[in-house]
Every structure is written in C-alpha cells, then in structure tokens.
C-alpha cells in the first residue's frame, strides 16, 4: 500500500491527466471493496480496553491506600475455583485459534466445531463464576472490597456473555452457504479477537483480585 502510494505520486506528478485517471482506475479495480471492519474493530477493542484500564486503576487506587486488603472483616478470596476458571478460559483461547486456522482453509465445519468447544468452555467459566458468587461471604454493598470485586468481575462476565453470543451468531451464520470464505471471514476473526481480548482482561483481573497480595 505504502509503496503503491509513493509510486502513484511520482506517476501522477510525471504523467498527464489521462494517465493519472488510469492509475486510480487500476487501483480501484484491485481493491473493489476494501474491508475496514477489522481495523475499526481493533479500535473498538482499544476503547473497550480503556474502560477496564479505568476500573483497574480505580481498584488499585483503593487498594494502595487501604491499611489492609482485604479490609478488616472481609474474607480472603478462595483461589481454587477462579484458578480452574482461568485455566479453562486460557485454554479456550487456544481452542478458538484452531477455528481461525480452519477458516483460512475455508473449512467451515471445523470452524463450527472449535467455536462450539469455545462456547462450552466460556459457559463453564460463567457457571463457575456464578457458583463462586453464590458462595461468597460478602456482597456488592460490602464496602470497597465487595463493590470492586463484583463490578470488576461482573463487567468481565458481561463481556464473556457477549463473546458467547458473538460466537453463536458466527456458528449460525456459517451455515449460510458462502457467508464466510477462506478470504472473507470478518465475523470469525472479530469473534475470536474479542475472545482473546476477554481472555487478556481476565488474566489481569485474576492477578489483581486473587493473586496480588
């Protein structure tokens, strides 16, 4: 693209009107429908990431000035279940990567299979989180400790849920013949990118909430 541009400029500078028009026509033919969706989606993820950065910063601000964390009267967080959940979510990123590889070969059956596995793993993660919620000794209103815990994990859980919806939409759409091809499969790419994003956010969240002392 870059080389093409500078090339064009020299041509435009050197050539007359007819040739310059010709150059643009060629260019337009080569990129009939330029697809900017991935670029836009990445920008959206940057923005979404900043939402979490803001919330993480708030959490760290609270923690850094607290005399002790968890505050007096609050239990230590149980780490076993979230650790299992972390492993499930982390592995699911590798599973969904298989779908990305498959779609580049135009193998939609395998895309459905790997997306299906990822959906199951995501659902297991959510179930684990709900189980954890149900067995906690504190609630949303339990001071800063409860508030930050539920808002952070809740926001992330909401993103997991959206990820599941995205993946199921992709599975449904892949049944439509010709909807995704080896060359054009923005939906597959976006859903898996989103899933990796959710995964990375969780790693930070897990380290902050459960691991960091």
């Amino acid at each position, binding site marked *: 693209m870059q080389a093409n541009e500078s090339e064009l400029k020299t041509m435009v500078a050197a050539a007359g009107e007819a040739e310059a028009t010709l150059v643009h026509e060629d260019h337009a033919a080569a990129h009939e429908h330029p697809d900017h969706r991935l670029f*836009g989606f990445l920008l959206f993820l940057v923005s979404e990431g900043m939402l979490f950065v803001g919330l993480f910063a708030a959490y760290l601000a609270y923690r850094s000035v607290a005399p002790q964390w968890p505050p007096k009267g609050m239990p230590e967080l149980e780490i076993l279940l979230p650790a299992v959940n972390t492993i499930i979510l982390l592995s699911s990123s590798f599973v969904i990567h298989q779908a990305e590889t498959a779609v580049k070969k135009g193998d939609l059956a395998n895309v459905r299979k790997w997306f299906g596995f990822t959906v199951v793993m995501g659902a297991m993660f959510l179930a684990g989180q709900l189980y954890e919620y149900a067995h906690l000794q504190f609630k949303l209103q339990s001071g800063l400790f409860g508030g930050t815990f539920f808002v952070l994990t809740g926001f992330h859980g909401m993103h997991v849920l959206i990820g599941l919806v995205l993946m199921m939409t992709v599975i449904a759409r892949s049944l439509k013949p010709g909807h995704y091809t080896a060359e054009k499969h923005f939906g597959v790419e976006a859903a898996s990118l989103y899933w990796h994003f959710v995964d990375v956010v969780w790693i930070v969240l897990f380290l902050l909430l459960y691991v960091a002392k």
Partner: protein
Amino acid sequence: MQLTQDQLQPEPLQDWRRYFSFCTDHKVIGIQYMVTSFVLYLAGGFLAMLIRAELLTPDADVLVTPDGDPTPYNASFTIHATIMIFLWLIPMLAGFANFLIPLMIGARDMAFPRINALAFWMIPPGATILLASFFFDPPGAGWTSYPPLSLQGVTDANGLVHFHTGQLLWQISVILLGTSSILGALNFITTIWEMRVPSMGIWQMPLFCWAMLATSIITLIATPVLTGALVLLTFDLVAGTSFFRPESGGNPVLYQHMFWFYSHPAVYIMVLPGFGMISEIIPVFSRKPIFGYKAIAISSMAIAVLGFIVWAHHMFTSGTPQWLRMFFMITSMIIAVPTGIKVFSWLGTMWGGKLRFTSAMVFAIGFLSMFVIGGLSGVMLASVPIDIHVHNTYFVVAHLHYVLFGGSVFAVYAGIYYWFPKITGRMLNETWGHIHFWLTLVGFNLCFLPMHKLGLMGMPRRVASYDPIFTYLNTVVSVGGFLLGISTLPFLANAIYSWIKGPKAPANPWEALTFEWTVSSPPPVENFTKLPVLTVGPYDYGHEGRSPDEIIRH
C-alpha cells in the same frame, strides 16, 4: 473511476424525510448532527439567559422555588453546561467532520455508515433524557457532578429522603452520549486512515482531517474512563455501593481523577476540530499557502498526547500533594507550546496575504483573538498559586468561556459561514454575517471579560446569590449576556432565509483547493462519480486566475 449503474447508491429517500430517518449518507448525518445540536445550543443559550437574569441582582429571586430554594438555578447551570458540552460543541463538530471528512479525502462515505447513523441516533434520546431530568428532581451538582454532592438524596414533602432521579437521568444521558462519540471516533479514525484517495498521503491531508484524527484518538481513549467513573457513580447512587461515598470508606477524589482524565482531554475534543476548521479558512481568505503545515499537524497530535497528562490541574485544591501539583502545573503550561505554534502559524499565514474579510474570515480572526485571551488565562490558571486563589471563582468561568465560546463557538460560526454554501447549496448573506459577528464579539466580551475581575475579587461560581459589592459588574455581564443571546437572531434569520431563498451557490465560491469544493454544492449522493487525483497541496494558493479544475485533476 466511473461508477457503473449498480455501484451507485440506491436513493430511497431524497426529500426532507431522509433527515428524520436512519439514513447512512454521511452528508445527511452531518446535517442531522448540526441541526440537532444547534437547536440544543438554543436551549442551552436560553438557560444561560435565565442564569444571567437570576444574577442581575444579588438576591436569589428568579430561578428559585416559592420558598426560596435555588434548586432551579442549580439545575439551570448544570444542564446549561451539559448541553453546551455534550449536546452542542461535541456533536456540532462531529457534524462538520461527518459532512466534510469523506469529501475532503475523496471518499464516497464514512468507513462504517450504519455505525455512523447509530452514533447520531443516540443523541436525540440522550438529549431527551437530559432535558427530562428537569422534571424529576433536577440534577444540580454541575456538569462535573462531583460526589458526595451528586450522591445526596432528595428530601420530599413528607421529610423522607429518597434517591435522586434527575441525577440518575443525567448520568444515563452522559453515558449514552459518550458511547455515541466513541462510535463516531472509531469511524473517523478508520475513514481518515484508510480511505484517502491513493494520491493523498498523510502529509497531503487537509489540516481539518489531522485535527479530527487527533480529536478522535482522544475520544476513543478517554471517553471509556468517564463511562467507568459514571458507572461507579451510578452504582453508588442506586445500588448502595460506596466507591465515592466518604461516609462508608469511599474516595470522592478518585471520581475527580477519573472524571478529569476524560474531561480535560475533552476540552481538546471541543477545540481541536475548531483549530482544524480555522486552518482551512485562514489560508483560503489570505490567498496564501498555510504557514507551517507540518507544525500545525504535529502540534494537534502533541496536544492530544499532552492532554492526557494534565488532568489534575483541575484538582489543585482537592488535596493533591505538592510534588504532583508541580508535575501537573508544568505539563499544563507545556500545552501552551503546541497551541502557540498553531496561533503563530495562522498569524504567519495571514501575514502579507491578500486578506478577504468574508464573514467566515472575520469569525476566524475573532476566534484567534478571543482564543488567545482564553489561552493566556489558561496559563495563569495552570499556575498553582494563582489557581488556589481563583479556584471555583468566576475567573474560571471567564477562562472556560473564552476558550469554549471565544474559541470553539467562534470557530463553529466561521465553519458555518465557510461551508454553508457547500452544505446547503445556497449562499449566506454577508452583510448580516458581519452584523452577527460584531454583535457576537461585543456581547461576548461584555459578558465574559468582567468575569475575570469578578473572579479575582472572589465571587464564587455556581451560586444563585452574591455579595452586593459584585452588583455593578454582574449587571454589565448580564447585559452582555443578553446581547450575546440577541446576536444569535440575525444568524438564525440569515441561515433559515438563505437555506430557502438564498442565491444558489457555485461549486467553489471561495476559490478553495480542498476536494470538497470540486464537487457541486450540495454534493451529489455518491460524492465523486470519478475519484479526484491530488496534484496540488490543499493550501497551495497563489494560483489566481486559474480555476481549481485546472490544478486538481479528475
């Protein structure tokens, strides 16, 4: 490239109804943004008139309930500011960007037309919710909505304290409007970065595109943090959490940090596009290439980056430690450098040019002069000792109106006078444009210049009553304010009349060189039937006597 018949956009609605529909044409969306935000500007201006009527006399006597409670006054200044920021300047500038960017870079539409329409259609509900908050315990904590003030319950007639509905509506509205501008921003970045005609490199982009690129990066990165702060505030308000409630261990200053992490960069969101428009207008009417193209482009980016590390200068009196104050004082003052580079570049462009004093140009010059005053008081406010003295006084009110009205609004008017022919296909009346300018300039200075003095004398902002020693200056301010309100009328009359009956505009009435002037006024639905090829820089003036058609190839 000649479009084939099936590549032409289908034209479902070509009459007035498309302006009320989910139309994906960027030009329609641009006009939707501009007209909607101008109507809301009138509403915000009306509130300003009410505020000035209240402040005409020292006692709280106009915007009070019968038992003397100034809640209506508090609601008025809160909603005045919220409208002017979130529903006037930000969407107005987004409207210009929507209309102009695809035309300026030779694209047929924005990158994501449907997201674009969605971003616009989040504004009417946002506006409705905000205005509705007037009728449900109106919010009165200012546009900053600092807790714990914003978290106060409301006491009803029976003495029961219940939760503040108006404040909740305010928060929902701002979250909605923030989301709208994020969607707009990712559209602008993608469009500017990916959809330029191949012959336009980044250093051939019109400076308005540079400004919108910088603005959109700020919007994209900063707005989610405000959303985060408002979500936490909403949890505190309705769900009984204690993030910002000091009485149960929360930290209200953290809200200020999160709020200003967005809202300081947001002032650049409101002024950088204005800088961009001024950079378009001044060279055209000076008939000279712009001075320091790269310097202006890079300084926009520098402002965007630096804007992220100055926020705590709003918090010098919030218990910010001394070393941190020094840091933010220095970074805030450094922002004046890229801004100064722009101002001197514009002056350098005008220097020795063949100036044409059209309405657009006089507003651009008005912008330059007024913005410099606001910039200077900004440097004063960045200095910790002065800020501590004048914090929360009318000095701050004066400063912010010099940059946001003297800066942004003057730039918006300059932009309207400049692009009105392109947008509507009709010329505005120049005489009435000049009358509008002089009324605005006089009213503006009469209204906001004395506020500096009031602030230095110690008059606090956001209070319905004041000490009688401030009466004289407040009378002057109110008269100026009413004059400023009246100054909108010649513009409105001119715009409405010209849109219907004004003389038809040629494609390029100002002999400008950017792409939008190479297409008809108003532009055709597909913008360019043949993609233009850039053979001349956007500001290479001095080609008098040659038509742009000769120097811009199709």
